[in-house]
């Protein structure tokens, strides 16, 4: 018990004997984590948009002109066998004409009462896991092979561009995240190293009296965990404070849940622990 009390006393001694180093460590880490948090929000909000837009993606399957109406149901059956695909509706030639009329008006269709060049079509929707270029291409190929299908259409180039943008954002996010983590690690480790260095004479004496590495290193480990977790929490605290001051109604911003923030703080604490280990390793010859 006395050892635990000693470790806690040492921890607070580290903090209050070096207030400048402690404050600079907290501010630097908070700022870096804030940057990371903002990017987290940006990425998740973009992802939400992406999911919302992509969920409205449909595919149209056009039926060949020479196929009798009775055969269409066989085409529909073949399509419904494909995993993750749902048939939303069937448009007969008359439905297509009516749809076009609703869009362009009746005047442009004068003279086409007897002849209707518009094709019959089947409108498809997809399960969320099917909504990628790769899987939709597969579905397109499968449907194209069905006898009686003349053409399959979906917003292929739009989807490709959206996927490329999303991939770019997540690559940049990974790079930025890695850079931020590295900066936190280096900066925090350096702060720990400086704090430990100011106490080098004392450590030497403690070692001479028989102190082991653990009792010397533990206060620094706890300090690292505390500073990391506090900085991580402060970053989110600042964001939620700003959020409470401004209301954005035009679109929904995605914020993490309380549980996610707790996990995040635990991870930033872990990062602090690693930093403190790196910072004092050489000094204590761990």
């Amino acid at each position: 018990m006395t050892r635990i009390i000693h470790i806690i006393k040492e921890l607070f001694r580290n903090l209050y004997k070096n207030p400048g180093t402690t404050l600079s460590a907290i501010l630097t880490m908070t700022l870096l984590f804030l940057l990371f948090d903002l990017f987290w929000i940006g990425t998740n909000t973009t992802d939400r948009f992406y999911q919302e837009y992509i969920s409205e993606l449909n595919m149209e399957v056009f039926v060949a002109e020479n196929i009798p109406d009775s055969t269409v149901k066989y085409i529909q059956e073949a399509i419904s066998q494909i995993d993750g695909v749902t048939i939303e509706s069937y448009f007969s030639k008359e439905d297509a004409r009516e749809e076009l009329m609703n869009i362009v008006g009746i005047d442009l269709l004068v003279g086409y009462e007897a002849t209707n060049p518009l094709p019959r079509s089947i409108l498809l929707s997809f399960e969320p896991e099917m909504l990628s270029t790769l899987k939709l291409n597969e579905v397109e190929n499968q449907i194209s092979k069905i006898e009686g299908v003349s053409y399959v259409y979906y917003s292929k180039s739009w989807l490709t561009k959206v996927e490329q943008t999303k991939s770019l954002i997540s690559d940049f996010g990974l790079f930025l995240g890695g850079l931020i983590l590295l900066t936190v690690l280096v900066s925090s480790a350096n702060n720990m190293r400086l704090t430990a260095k100011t106490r080098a004479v004392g450590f030497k004496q403690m070692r001479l009296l028989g102190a082991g590495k653990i009792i010397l290193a533990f206060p620094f480990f706890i300090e690292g965990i505390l500073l990391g977790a506090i900085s991580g929490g402060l970053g989110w605290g600042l964001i939620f404070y700003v959020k409470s001051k401004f209301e954005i109604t035009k679109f929904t911003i995605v914020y993490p849940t309380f549980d996610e923030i707790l996990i995040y703080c635990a991870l930033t604490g872990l990062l602090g622990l690693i930093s403190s280990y790196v910072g004092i390793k050489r000094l204590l010859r761990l």
Partner: protein
Amino acid sequence: MSDKTVIELSNVYLKTDRGNDLFLDLNFSLKSGESAIIYGAAGSGKSVLVELLIGRRFVDSGAVEVFGKNVKKRKKRIIRSIRKKVGGVGGIFSLVPTFTVAENITYPLVLAGESKKVIKDRLMKMLTEFSLLKQASEYPDKLTRVEKMLVQFARANVAHQPLIIIDEPLAGLDHKTYDRIYEYMGKLALSGLSLFIVSSLELKSDLPKTRSFQLVNGVLV
């Protein structure tokens, strides 16, 4: 080696960092309850001898045993256990600058995992014995040289360490303090502890159960 032998140096040979011979076939033994004064000129290797005993340096050949345990490089756990049983005063043993006097004195008890009550009782005893009650919450940089030495004596004895190593205990002290420290060393020697005193001055040889040696040209005579 008998169980009661505290220090055993056998055929110790050591070179300095520059490659000169420092110890040539050094042999020495100190039984429990006995004390020894090693004196020698500056540079004769007295402090190095202390470093060998607490595992800060290691012999080139021969053996150093403290409390029956061989002090060898890489035997960190053994070295730590030896250091816990050794009280140190002067030389390489100084005070932890960030600890108060009370914390410095009680640190060996904390390492030994003693209870809060034992720590408090022993601290009070030591503070009273060394007249350090007023300085208990001071930091070492506020203490005089003599006060620092008294704190080191208190720390060296607080956990009933069976061996106390004292490096240059009386150098530069005024008569009054000299007598006080000398008297205290006498008390320690009488109490059944083993003192290992290194000094550049030839001390009075009336410390009880104490033998004197001179370290000259790498051997003890």
